[in-house]
Structure formats: C-alpha cells, structure tokens
C-alpha cells in the first residue's frame, strides 16, 4: 500500500479513536450492567458494543474493500486474511473501565499480509495517544518519538521492569504457567529466580505494549489475549525499535493471531533478554494456533 494511503488511514483512525474516547469517558458503566462472556470475570458492556459498531460502520463506509475484525463481533474460528484488515478493540481494559480505573484504551490497527502496518492506541482518560505507520516511526501524542528516552542497555532480567497480566482464565494449564512463572521471575536468585526489579499489572494489553514501546516497561509477557488487543500495539512497538517474539520458548516469529506474545523494548541486549526470559518459563502455554 502507498504511504499516502497509510497516512490517510492513520489520520482517520486517530479521529475515530478520539470520537470513541468521548463516548467512553462519558459513559457510566457499572458491574451490575456489565455482562460477562466466558466466565464471571470476562466482562463486556454496552459501551464496548456501541463503540465497536460506530467504528466498524465508519470504516466500512470509507474502506469498503477492507476486512474488519473486531472483538465484539468476532466469530470464533475466523482467520485473519492477508488482504488489508482493520483489527479493532473498542475498549481494551473493560474491567478497568467498569471500575473507573483510568488505564483503558481504544486499539485500532491495520494489518496487511498478516503484519500490523498502522497502529493507533488511545487512552481517553489520560488523553494519551500512541501511533505508528510502518517505516515512519512511533509517537506519543503525535509529537514525542518513541522510545521516550535513550534506552539503557539490558544486561540481565534482574534490572528490568516486567509487565504481566493474569487474564480471565483462572484454572488449567495456562493459568498455572503464568502463576508459577510470575513467582519465578520475581523470586530471589538464590532460589533460581530472576529477581526482576518489579512485576507490574495494569489491565490493558494495548497500553502495556505502548509502555514497552515507550521504554518505561522493559518486557511484556502475555498469552490468552487476542489479535485485536495487540495489532495496533505491535505496529507501535516495532516502529519504536522493540521486538515481539512468542510467549512460549523458541519461536522468534510469532503470528499476530497466535495469542502468545513476548515484547521487549528497544535497547542493546534484546536477544539475550529473550533467551533469559524463556529459560524461566514454567511449562508451555497451550493457547493459540
């Protein structure tokens, strides 16, 4: 696709994100009105659905030949086509949204040939916008280049701030892989742990990826989320010099729909950090294609 066309799409996605942001910040969700999807902690609200509808309608009108994959209208089993596809999460961080915790984002991505090429992530509560076009760099508020400061080299996991999320699966293999690995990552070196500086959990995969792109989170390890949670963030991460590999050890080339992601920020030592991280994982995730 031509750069001009990508720029136009980028600008349009920003307009849509800001418009959705108004809807989100003026909504008054409550856990009473929230429905749940696969279990009592996988929440969805009317706002999620309304925002997705508004976005998909606008996108289909302006780009009728493009495909659309959105969280609230996803048909299980659908595979991402290679043709240009908008991949949208109307509210990433619905649990936070319902609780009023202002770490929530609209995530709008464009993928071509299964690769993210445009990404827009917007937190309407803090009015922070992250965006990128393939080859054109990544930015915060369209003005500050990512990463936000000169990246320090990464020698050891023990110097890093690691972001993780527990997810909505609360039993079974993958939940245990997470829980045991978190303990191992943070645990003391004397007991075989990585003694990372800190473990952080905030509740929005898209914003977490933007944190890694910004450089204020060093690593984000995740499994169980979906292409719409990460498409835009991946475009931004890559343009900021970060890398994305598989959350399971050994795969340097994860699929956008693979549902298993390990993001590492820009900085010397990325590959060594990936290897170190993989060595601490307690088991393997089963989720994903």
């Amino acid at each position, binding site marked *: 696709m031509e750069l001009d066309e990508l720029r136009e799409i980028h600008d349009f996605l920003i307009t849509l994100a800001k418009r959705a942001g108004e809807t989100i910040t003026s909504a008054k969700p*409550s*856990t009473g009105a929230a429905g749940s999807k696969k*279990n*009592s*902690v996988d*929440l969805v609200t009317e706002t999620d659905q309304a925002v997705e509808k508004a976005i998909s309608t606008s996108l289909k009108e302006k780009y009728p030949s493009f495909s659309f994959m959105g969280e609230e209208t996803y048909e299980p089993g659908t595979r991402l086509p290679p043709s240009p596809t908008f991949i949208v999460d109307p509210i990433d961080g619905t*649990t*936070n949204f*319902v*609780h*009023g*915790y*202002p770490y929530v984002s609209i995530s709008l991505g464009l993928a071509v040939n299964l690769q993210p090429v445009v990404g827009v992530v917007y937190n309407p509560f*803090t009015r922070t916008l992250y965006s990128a076009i393939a080859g054109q760099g990544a930015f915060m508020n369209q003005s500050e280049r990512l990463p*936000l*400061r000169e990246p*320090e080299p990464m020698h050891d996991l*023990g*110097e890093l*701030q690691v972001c993780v999320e*527990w997810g909505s699966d*609360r*039993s079974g293999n993958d*939940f245990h892989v997470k*829980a045991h690995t*978190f*303990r191992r990552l*943070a*645990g*003391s070196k*004397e*007991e075989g*742990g990585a*003694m*990372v*500086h*800190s*473990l*952080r*959990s*905030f*509740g929005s995969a898209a914003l977490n990826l933007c*944190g890694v792109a*910004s*450089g*204020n*989170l*060093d690593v984000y390890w995740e499994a169980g989320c979906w292409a719409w949670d990460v498409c835009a963030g991946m475009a931004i991460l890559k343009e900021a010099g970060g890398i994305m590999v598989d959350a399971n050890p050994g795969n340097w080339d994860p699929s956008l729909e693979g549902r298993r992601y390990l993001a590492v920020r820009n900085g010397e030592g990325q590959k060594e950090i990936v290897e170190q991280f993989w060595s601490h994982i307690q088991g393997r995730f089963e989720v994903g294609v």
Partner: protein
Amino acid sequence: MKPKLVDNLSIPELKKICNFLKGVAKAAGKMILAADPSVDGSEEKNNTSDRVTATDKAVEAMIHAELTANYPDFDFLGEESFKAGQKLSKKPTFVVDPIDGTLNFCHGFPNAAVSLALTIRRKPVVGVVYNPFRGDLFYATQGCGAVLQKADGSKKKLGLNPRPISSLNDCLVAVEWGNQRTGPNWQLRTRMAMDFMTAKKDGGRMCHSLRSSGSAALDFCYVAAGWIDVFWEGGCWVWDVAAGWIILLEAGGLVVSANPGDWEPGVEGRLYMGIAAAERQQQESIVEEVWAMMGEGKFVF
C-alpha cells in the same frame, strides 16, 4: 485565650497545613519532573529491587527544609533520613516519602508520587499524595473529606457514590510484589496473589483482577477513588502509607491490618489492608473473606 498546645490543632489549622503541604508537594513534583533518572544512576539499598536515587534524597532535603522552617515545633520522619528503630512520637509529625515508586521513576513509568502526611498521636490527620507525571493530586484533612484534583484543575470529592461490593468475586484487588523475594513473607504473598485470582472451583476467590502499579501511596489513593476495591499489603513503611491512609478514611474507606484479626492497625505496623467506601457491613465482609484466605498464614516483619 486559645491554648497554644501544639497537639490540639483545630480543623482550620489542619486545613492550612494541608494547603501548605499541597504547595510543597507541587514543588517536589517540579524537581521530580526535572530529574533525568536512570536505572544505572540509581543505587541499591537492601537489594537490587530496593533502590534510591539522588532525586529521592534531594527532594526529601527540600521538603525537610520547608517543613522545619514553617513548623519548627513539629517532628519529621522521612524515608531517606530514617534511622532504624525510629518511632513516631505523639507530637505532630510530618511523615514524608519523597518518591513513592522509585523503581517506576527510574524506569520512566509515570506512576510515582510524593507522599506528605501529618500525624498527631500517631494517627494521620492530613495527607497529600501528588503524582507529577499525571498531575493527580489526592488530599484530605480529617473531618473534611478527600479530594482528587486533576491537572486541568478540576476537583472531585472521593467516595461519594460507592458501588456495592458483595464479595471478592466483584473486586479489583491491588497487591505489590515488594522487594523481599524469599522466605515465608514471600511465600505468603505469592500464594495469596494466586488465590485471589484462582477459580472458585479450585478454591480461589476469582476476583475481577489483580493490579500491581508500584506505589503503595497511589494504591491507597486509587482505593479512595473507588478505582480499586481492596489493597492488601505487608512490608511497606509508614512513609508509604500515612498520607494515603487518611485520604482513604476520609473517602469512606476502611483500613485494617493485612494480618487476620486486627481491626485497629497502627500506621507504623507495616501491615495494611484498605477497603473502598461501601456499607460498613460489606467492607467487613470483604475483610473477613481476605483474612479467611490467609488461613494460618501471616506476615512477620
């Protein structure tokens, strides 16, 4: 004639102190924003995850100078000048953390705050917590409610419309991982984190989710704001929580011990559980649910 007893401060006098502390917090915020921290430029205290920077020290020195100049009769307890074994007296005491969330600060993550409190007879009566990266200013004076003032100047009184919470299954819970990563306290903490999240059919509480943001002061404020329902924490210090404590109480929240059975924890006890505003019965039921999860376990610091 009004008695000049320093520990019988009137509400207007306390409010004046609160306004003064807000100004000091803003000045500290400016210093924090102007700093150029890095992981490499920081030093270890007890271990690699317990860090301090030149900015922590400089900010505390500035705060100490301001506070002692304006209130020379009050005592001062600050993180960076703390002597092991130092205890709060009954006298009015400023309790100060120049940067709560130093790791976030070193890494550039915008969730860190200056925390300023006044205690009298070892109880927080005024609290100010300011995150200069987001421009969020949380404050409270005993008897006057708690407020969040945002960067755009707008003010919101906290705790006015609490949502009902019937059990941990409805709750967003904040926990931190601390810097003690081995031993029985670590085992308790990691086991509880998993139990909060685990499915009920496997013996867990299946709470909505866990959040770990890296600043105890801000965690207390987020509970005051109702964004988080429960903050369960052991191991942090009086300077991390003194301000957040009064902010949470003034927002209608409840503060009990992280360890089972203690409904009246001391502010220096290093054991804290904060519950968001709700009917007292609901709050107590959540406390009992968390304590029951602990079984025979408890923190020992």
